[in-house]
C-alpha cells in the first residue's frame, strides 16, 4: 500500500518549511506522529532548530496534529528550538489558541510574513 504523505518539507530562504497536506484525520495519528517525529529527528541531526509549519492546505485538524507539532517542537529542543505556524484559517487558529500553544509558538498570517521575519539576519544565529 502506498505510504500516506502528510506533509512536504523544504528549505526556503534558510528556513525549514513543513507544508501540511489537507487530509490530516486523527485516525491516521500513528503514522502522522511517526512521520513528524522522523522529520524532527532529522532536523535535530542537521542542527535545524527553527521550523515553519504551513497550514494553507488544512481546513481543520484535531489533537493528533497538536501532538505531532508538540513532538516536532520537542525534537527541535523545546525551549531552545522554535516552531512557527502560518496561514491558519479561522478554525485552525482557534485550535492553536485553545491549546495555548500560541504562548510558545509564533503564528504568522502567511508564509511570506513568516519567511521575512524568520530569515532575517538576527534569526540566523
Amino acid at each position, binding site marked *: 500500500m502506498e505510504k500516506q504523505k502528510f506533509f512536504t518539507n523544504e528549505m526556503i530562504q534558510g528556513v525549514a518549511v513543513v507544508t501540511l497536506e489537507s487530509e490530516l484525520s486523527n485516525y491516521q495519528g500513528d503514522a502522522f506522529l511517526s512521520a513528524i517525529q522522523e522529520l524532527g529527528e532529522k532536523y535535530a541531526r542537521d542542527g535545524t532548530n527553527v521550523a515553519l509549519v504551513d497550514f494553507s492546505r488544512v*481546513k481543520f*485538524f*484535531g489533537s493528533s496534529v497538536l*501532538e505531532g507539532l*508538540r513532538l516536532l517542537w520537542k525534537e527541535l529542543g523545546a525551549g531552545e528550538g522554535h516552531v512557527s505556524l502560518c496561514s491558519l484559517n479561522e478554525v485552525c487558529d482557534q485550535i492553536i489558541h*485553545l491549546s495555548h500553544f500560541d504562548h510558545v509558538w509564533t503564528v504568522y498570517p502567511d508564509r511570506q510574513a513568516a519567511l521575512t521575519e524568520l530569515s532575517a539576519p538576527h534569526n540566523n544565529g
Partner: protein
Amino acid sequence: MTTVLIVDDSAADRALASGLLQKRGGNKVLFATNGIEALAQIEMHLPDLVVTDLQMPDMNGLELVDAIKKNYPLIPVILMTSKGSEEIAVQALRSGAASYVPKKTLARDLSETVEMVAASLREDRAHSRLMFHRMTKSDSTFELPNDLTLIPPLVSHLRQMTRYMGVCNDSDRLRVGVAIEEALVNAYYHGNLEVSSLLREQNHNQYHDLARERMEKPPYRDRKIHVESRLTREQATFIVRDEGPGFNPETVPDPTDQKNLDRPWGRGLLLIKTFMDDLRFNSSGNEITMVKQRSASLDG
C-alpha cells in the same frame, strides 16, 4: 445547457478543448488564460464546471483549484494534465479537483469526462434541493467495529447531515466534525483498547504498539463503538459510547496549564468541550453526549 469555463494559457489548447465540447452539443463555453482571469469569469458568469490546465503563469491550476474549492465549493474542476504536471495534478486532486484528462487523450476523453461530471453535478443538485431545509428531523444509529478507518466517513456523513439540517454555519460544522472525531478516537484508543495517554507521554510508539497488539486480543478486539445522532433544525445531538470500563473525566489534566503544555493529555476533550454547547458523560464514563445548538447568527 452546461456552461464550461476553459482555462489554459495556450490558445491552441483552448481552441481544441472548446471545439470538442461544442461539437458534442449542449455546452456553452467561456475562456480564461490563467487562474486570475478564471476567478474573474467565475465571479461574473458562475459556470457549471471548470476545465483547467495546470501549468500557467500568474496563478497555476493548483492554486486555482484551491481558490475555487474555497470560494465556490459546488463548482467541479476537471484538470487537463500533461507530461511533467503529474505531481501538481495529484495535489490538485487531493485539494478537491473532480477528475482529470491527459492532454494527449483530450480528443478521446474530454467530452465524456465533462458529461460524466456534469451528470453527477445535476444529481447532486437535485439531491441538495431535496435535502436542504426540507428535512426536519433525522435520527440515526451506528454500531461500528473498533476500526479507525470507519471514523472519517462517519464524521463526514454526520457533518453533511448537520449541513442539510442547517444547524450551524460552515466553520461551526468543521468544529462539530473535530469534536465528533475526537470522541470517536477516544472511544477507540482509551475506551475499547484501554490504552492510556500516560504511555503516550513516555513513548508514542509504545502507545500505538500496545493499541495494535490489543486489536488482536479479546476482549479488546471484540468491542464496538456505538454512535447515535439526533438532528433537528434546532439542535444536533451526538452520543458516542464504547464498551470499555469508562473513565473519570475529572482526572484529565488541564492541557492549557503551562506545566502541561509539553504533555500529550486532554487536548481532544478540550476541543470537544469548546466546540460543543453542551457535554456530559454517563456515570461510568464510557458514553459522551455532545450537543450543538442552532447558531443564533443563522436566524439574523
